[in-house]
């Protein structure tokens, strides 16, 4: 570590040199690896060593269980689809094969997401002559986890570029964006390539190495896609969705893996427990209302608690809705924001036949409404205090 630090210090390019990009890259890497020794020139200010880069890394760490599980599950679904193992008796055999296959499929997505996104960040940092901003560390990890496995790499690259440039950099970079960057990527893919991303197809990849392909691809409906069309019995049981060996986007299937990440986020206080709790409350309320008015609609009869386990609800509530930049900032606002997202997510999922999954769009709508919610909370607070002053 010492040697590395000395080496980095030796490599440091001049900040006012001819190559702003070189300095930006060096600065970004250095402050990523070592806590920078910034001190204030005047006045007394205490700096916490947990700066933005450290915060971001904790979120990335929280995502690791989802990523590892996702890698394994991709391989698992692959061999399940090929028929190499009998369903239910698949956990022990072919373990390494599954992991390797999952790595082959998932790693390129991670590399593309980080490569394109950080590349754009570096270029913008060089043009604006400010240090590289660290916001993409989390987005770059979220993006591979919420896309289907077999997404063409070019599409992913285009979507990431769109989201980083138009969703974030034009707003002034990290901390200024209005919509969650990862969700903008997902929404862009969803609406720009609807045939590839309609969200109702199962994303199981069966193609082997070239020339050996058994079938071009195996596509059936996702559990939620089937449910919208009326086949509610296709929905996995609560137990299945808690463990997570079900088809779906890479990171969203296992409640256990998500829960591990959630524990870390809550323990470190990075994610707001108010938003997480209120999102689940909102989802439960909406599911409960649907249960009461269900009639003979089978999808509405799915128990409210079960609805929360399905699809990307838990993943979205814990990792995306809690984004401190795009969410609400006031405590009262956080409750409203979370409940709004929960209600909309279940509402879109059940009542809107166009989208089998509503969490992504619900959180985007929540992001759009967040500034207004904050505005209302703050201005009503001002009014309350003014009244107090007047009466006194």
């Amino acid at each position, binding site marked *: 570590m010492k040697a590395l630090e000395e080496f980095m210090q030796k490599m440091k390019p001049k900040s006012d040199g001819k190559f702003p990009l070189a300095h930006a890259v060096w600065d970004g890497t250095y402050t990523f690896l070592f806590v920078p020794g910034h001190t204030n020139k005047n006045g007394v200010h205490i700096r916490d060593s947990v700066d933005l880069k450290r915060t971001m890394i904790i979120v990335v760490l929280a995502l690791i269980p989802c990523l590892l599980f996702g890698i394994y599950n991709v391989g698992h679904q692959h061999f399940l689809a090929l028929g190499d193992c009998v369903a239910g008796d698949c956990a022990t055999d072919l373990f390494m094969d599954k992991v390797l296959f999952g790595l082959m499929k998932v790693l390129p997505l991670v590399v593309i997401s980080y490569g394109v996104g950080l590349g754009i960040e570096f270029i913008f940092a060089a043009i604006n002559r400010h240090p590289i901003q660290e916001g993409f560390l989390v987005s770059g990890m979220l993006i591979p986890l919420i896309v289907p496995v077999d997404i063409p790499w070019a599409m992913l690259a285009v979507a990431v570029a769109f989201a980083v440039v138009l969703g974030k950099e034009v707003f002034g970079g990290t901390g200024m964006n209005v919509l969650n960057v990862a969700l903008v990527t997902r*929404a862009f893919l969803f609406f720009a390539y609807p045939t590839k991303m309609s969200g109702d197809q199962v994303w199981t990849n069966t193609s082997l190495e070239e020339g050996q392909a058994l079938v071009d691809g195996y596509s059936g409906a996702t559990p939620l896609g089937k449910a919208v069309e009326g086949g509610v019995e296709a929905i996995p049981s609560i137990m299945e969705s808690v463990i997570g060996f079900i088809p779906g986007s890479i990171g969203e299937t296992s409640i256990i893996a998500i829960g591990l990440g959630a524990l870390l986020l809550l323990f470190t206080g990075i994610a707001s427990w108010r938003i997480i709790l209120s999102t689940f409350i909102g989802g439960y309320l909406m599911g409960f209302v649907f249960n009461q008015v269900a009639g003979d609609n089978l999808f509405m009869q799915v128990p409210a608690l079960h609805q929360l386990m399905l699809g990307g609800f838990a993943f979205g509530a814990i990792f995306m809705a809690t984004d401190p930049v795009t969410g609400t900032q006031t405590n009262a606002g956080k409750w409203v924001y979370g409940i709004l997202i929960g209600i909309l997510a279940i509402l879109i999922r059940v009542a*809107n036949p166009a989208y089998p999954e509503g969490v992504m769009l619900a959180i985007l709508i929540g992001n759009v409404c967040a500034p207004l919610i904050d505005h209302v909370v703050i201005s009503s607070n001002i009014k309350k205090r003014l009244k107090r002053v007047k009466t006194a």
Partner: protein
Amino acid sequence: MEYLNIFIKSAFIDNMVFTFFFGMCSYLAVSKTVKTAVGLGSAVIFVLVVTTPINYLLETLVLQEGALSWLGDEYATMDLSFLSFIMFIAVIASIVQLVEMLVEKFSPALYGALGIFLPLIAVNCAILGAALFMQQKQFANIGQATVYGLGSGFGWFIAIVLIAAIREKIKYSHIPGPMRGVGMAFLLTGLMGLAFLGFLGFEL
């Protein structure tokens, strides 16, 4: 239920701003602060609720093919729908003038709050757009047309208030020079439209 359906559909699914990009000029110009946005938004709701049913009556009693049959048999085959643009805009402009005078007379406070926005609404294309969509949708009765007007106005209100809150929030962001101001508002409208696509396809 029928009325609720029309309301939800016109307010969220066929949102005037995010789906049709109507009324953009005042939407972009007045959305700098939440306060003015609320003022203009309420004025739009008000005018839409008043003009849409009047235009509906005009459409069914005068303009539609065969609408003039109440005058006598020789008028039963008349089709005046080619006049609808000019008639609708004339109705809107005169109603806005009338409303302005009434508001000024009876509620000076509201008149002061709405200010210049009230006369500006006469040329807001969301109002004419709502009248023309109303003509196209062929509502069964005047109640439905009124609810349609209310819903469209409410959707426009939501859109302008939301973007105003966002623009207040990003006022101090380090936005690249060329994107500041209207450029940012255009981009924001597009991104918000992306989010609002979630309502597309709702069936109640």
